């Protein structure tokens, strides 16, 4: 994946953030979305270790040792930032106060099942906060490379890995495409600049429904 393709997918995900949303950005790629949000855009970023109104990441030199996000990055407050305990933080999540969460994925299935926490026998560090984000944010989007490092499609008919949550994903952003999860399966909405619909279909393990007409690019 070229640097541009990576940036473009992140910028594309950022464009779907609506004014007034409260958004939790998962560790990894999703965290980068914040770089594509205009400074005066009204959005509240939540981090599950106990912040609403997460501000920009700081260098170690400027960091407050007591102010990290859930990924361990040193962040800053904004006017209106609040800190709270972990029970209150997940109360916010479970009671539906997150308009949107953007999560990474190992696999997403055609029905919206998400697997992003465990590879049996290889990687099992614990679930952290992912299950609650995936199950309770009002919209769940996945931001991930289309294929894993071995070139296998992450978008699959059925997840082979243990699930984080069932039928939770609404939209998928990858370096190749924007895909919606609908009641009738996956729907291809946009393809990355320079790629064709066939490129995306060929790289995707799951069946993709392709609406008639020209597919927009991003």
């Amino acid at each position, binding site marked *: 994946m070229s640097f541009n393709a990576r940036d473009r997918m992140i910028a594309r995900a950022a464009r779907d953030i609506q004014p007034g949303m409260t958004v939790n950005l998962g560790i990894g790629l999703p965290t980068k979305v914040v770089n594509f949000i205009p*400074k005066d855009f009204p959005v*509240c970023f939540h981090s599950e270790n106990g912040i*609403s*109104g997460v501000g920009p990441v700081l260098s170690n030199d400027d960091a407050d040792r007591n102010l990290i996000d859930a990924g361990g990055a040193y962040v800053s407050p904004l006017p209106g930032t*609040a*800190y709270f305990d972990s029970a*209150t933080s997940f109360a*916010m*999540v479970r009671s*539906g106060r997150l308009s949107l969460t953007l999560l990474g994925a190992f696999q997403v299935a055609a029905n919206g099942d998400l697997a992003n926490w465990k590879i049996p026998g290889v990687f099992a560090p614990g679930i952290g906060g992912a299950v609650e984000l995936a199950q309770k944010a009002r919209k769940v989007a996945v931001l991930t490379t289309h294929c894993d490092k071995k070139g296998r499609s992450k978008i699959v008919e059925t997840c082979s890995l243990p699930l984080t949550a069932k039928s939770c994903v609404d939209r998928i952003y990858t370096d190749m495409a924007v895909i919606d999860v609908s009641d009738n399966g996956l729907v291809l909405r946009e393809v990355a600049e320079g790629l064709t619909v066939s490129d995306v279909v060929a790289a995707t393990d799951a069946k993709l429904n392709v609406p008639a007409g020209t597919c927009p690019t991003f």
Partner: protein
Amino acid sequence: MLLDKKTTIEEAIGRIKDGDSVMLGGFGVPGTPFCLIQELVRQGQKDLTVIKNDANEKGMGVDWLLENGQVRKLITSHIGLNARAVELKNNGSVEIEFVAQGILAERVRAAGAGLMGFVSDIGIDTEFADGKQQVELNGKVGLLEPAINADFALVHAQSADSFGNLRFSGTAMNFNPLMAMAADTVIVETESYVALGDIQPEDIHCPGPFTDAIVELSDLPEVYGVVQR
């Protein structure tokens, strides 16, 4: 930047419809959102289910809604200071559901925490257990207490900013932050409307993501004052 949620009292209370459930903050006078209740009386929505710790006293707060016939059901821990509430309960015109005070607070919080309910041994072996589902947990029997959510919460804050970060004064905190967690739409009246950032991040009692509409009070009616007995 954070969303500006400031609005007028008319618009905010206008979101409430007949038949809605409405939580009211407050324990006695402190923390009771009298101005929001007053506007609810003015607009006259009917058949409300009201959730509040107590029924206030005659002539204030919840009593205005009772007097105006807007309350179908009241979920509360205590109505002893309001003779009208006692009378309406006795003549059956308002349904009263009593819940032990801490269980009421916790059931409201449970909704605010997105839980279905909790298990406790409070009230076991007494009439408080009547009709409650029993659950066995580690060999001990407890009572299942369902979460109480609501369509609206009306909250009184000492100070609030445009994003709806709140701070309470003294014992005026009580049920306010819990109800702000629990309701679908949270309407806040504040004595002091402050700029974003004026409340330090560590000093916020209720974070903005829980709240929806902020109403600035101009001056405080006498009912907020010290009760002269």
